[in-house]
């Protein structure tokens, strides 16, 4: 942990660079969403824009967490404590979506195999 004044002095530059990177990342996010030739996937918003946007956001978030929040050289306890939040948060979201995406399909009795109703929730 960069606790001694000398080490902190050294990291000032790093903080500035990261700050700059965050600015660049933000501008980049806006550009891919608004400038036509940077619009990947189909025209307008689609899943590729979403993936790219979230990718940039995740990168930025990781930078903040690693450098500003000192997670790059933190005690192992902190990894456990915060990691648990991340893990269970992810588990919750994933399982909710799994449940959402796994509906009962009711194929009907007398429609000759044609679905007569699909219960999606």
């Amino acid at each position: 942990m960069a606790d001694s004044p000398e080490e902190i002095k050294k990291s000032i530059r790093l903080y500035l660079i990261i700050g700059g990177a965050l600015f660049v990342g933000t501008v980049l996010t806006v550009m891919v969403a608004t400038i036509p030739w940077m619009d990947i996937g189909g025209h307008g918003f689609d899943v590729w824009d979403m993936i790219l946007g979230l990718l940039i956001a995740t990168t930025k978030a990781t930078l903040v967490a690693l450098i500003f929040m000192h997670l790059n050289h933190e005690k192992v306890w902190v990894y456990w404590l915060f990691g648990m939040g991340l893990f269970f948060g992810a588990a919750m979201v994933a399982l909710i979506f799994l449940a959402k995406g796994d509906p009962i399909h009711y194929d009907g009795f007398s429609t000759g195999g044609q679905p007569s109703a699909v219960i999606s929730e």
Partner: protein
Amino acid sequence: MEIPYVVNPRKDTGLFNSKIAIWLFLASEVMLFGGLFSGYVFLRIGADYPWPERTLPVLPGLINTFILIASSVTVVFAWASLKMRNWRNFQIFMGATVLCALVFMGFKAVEYGVKFKHQAVRMVDFTMVEGHASYLKEKKDGTDHGDADHGEGDYVLDLDGDKIAINQHVFAVESASFNLNRYYKPWLEELLAHAEHDGATITLAEKMDFNAPGEEKPELVFAKGEVLSLDLLEAIADAYKDNAVRNATARKKYLRAAWEIKWADVEENDLLGEAAFAAAYPKGFELEADERKLAYTRWKAGMRAKMAQDVSIDSVKLGNGDSVEVLIDGVTYASRELPAPNSASFQSDKPIVVRHKGRNVITDYKPDNTSIALRDGTALTGTYKPSPVDFHEVDGIDFQHLAMDAEKKNLDPEIAIENSWLVKENPVVADLWTLHRQAVGQLEEILAKKNRVPTEKDRYRMGWQEIAYYMDAIEAHREQGGEGLPTIELADNANAPPKVKMGLKEHFMGPNYEARSFPHIAIPRAEILLESKFTPKWNSYYAIYFTITGLHGLHVVGGAIVLGYYLFFGRRMYLTNPEWLANRVEVGGLFWHFVDLVWIFAFPIFYLM
């Protein structure tokens, strides 16, 4: 007693207490925002209507992102300054951080404020109209706004001195019946104020007498014609509640007495016993012992249920068929029941115009509706005035939901739009729509060269920039003496329907209504399915947007208060124990970075997707 490891880290964990605590807290915050963001995705995936994508102006969000990132940098610097024991720098950087928080909240307030003033309507055919609701203007009779004119003139002010927006339900009240349990005082006050303003008198429609039979307390008699006031209605409600309580107590006693009679009868004559069972159900004795026991259980349960029908407050039917009156002190309940009507009716000598927001009115609008129920149980009689939602400036017309609905019904969306009320009844919208279709047609061709297609939003939504563009084009065309409609020409590299360029102020405050022209449309109440400002009520996008950004805003405020505390009240601790203060700032900074982290996700999700 001292708590250890407040300043210095414990050896085996390497952490001081508050650092563990803040990381635990952040873990729980991850779960909180995880829940909210999963709510967002759930709502978006499950939406049964077109999700309003990329609907907010990006610039304010972008600036706010910059501000938060900057504050994240400054808060690290503030901590570093403390670590290097440089109080002056700490003050500068921490001050900058707190300032950033304030500016952030300022922009947020502007963004919210614009939305809270922006009117929207979902029509019964799922057309969405957005815009600026106009205010009621002075007319000669000063009351009716069914056909408010929109020329110059002074606005009608309501009794609080505010302009009256034309988006409310309007009634001319002739009589009103109040629910004495839960009439809503502020509405009553409003009604009275209107009556006073209109010079009307509201009086009790019928005499109300809360005296017990044979009693004559004058304070419990309310004569027909007494003038409605807060005090009067309160006195009536009090009298009613008093009587209701006494009735309830008496009813309880009588019912108890009735059951006592019944149970005495049952016990005396053994009405639930085996013998009674045998008499009532001779078949039971042909059954096996187990079966018979079961049949007896069933019969007994059935008998007990039947008994309940024999018992009432007034009389009890005994097992032998006789009926016994229930008396307490030789008196029946009916003869001592106190009058307790739970509503009081009043009438006015002339119609009083009152306005109510949509949520307050339970009755659906019909032009010939003469009785209106309000949420507090008040029943109004009179006239349901036309109550349109009047857009002085329509700055958004959205057929996406209509088109989706049409496709679901296997109809051609284009025809459905042609047949919608908005296009059919409003020539100006028909013109706009024609131009828009022209533009979309060209856009389709241009995009086809790149193997792309216009989005649903391109096709079916005219935002304010498109509307302003078409309006300008039409105006220019007419000024040059052109007949019919102008033709729209898209540039070869066009990527969207044509738009006017957004001014700097318009990024923040929405369209400049004075400089640009927009159509004016009044939508009749009968065509309206849902009417709302751009608030959480309007759709689940705004609901989740306001909830997440609002909660995030609360975090910003909370963080700023804590950091501000260190800034303004940290000096003493800096002098006595600077390491402790540095720890505190580090912990506060961790929270601040987390707030930044949330925004890093919230910004693209709400502004760019």
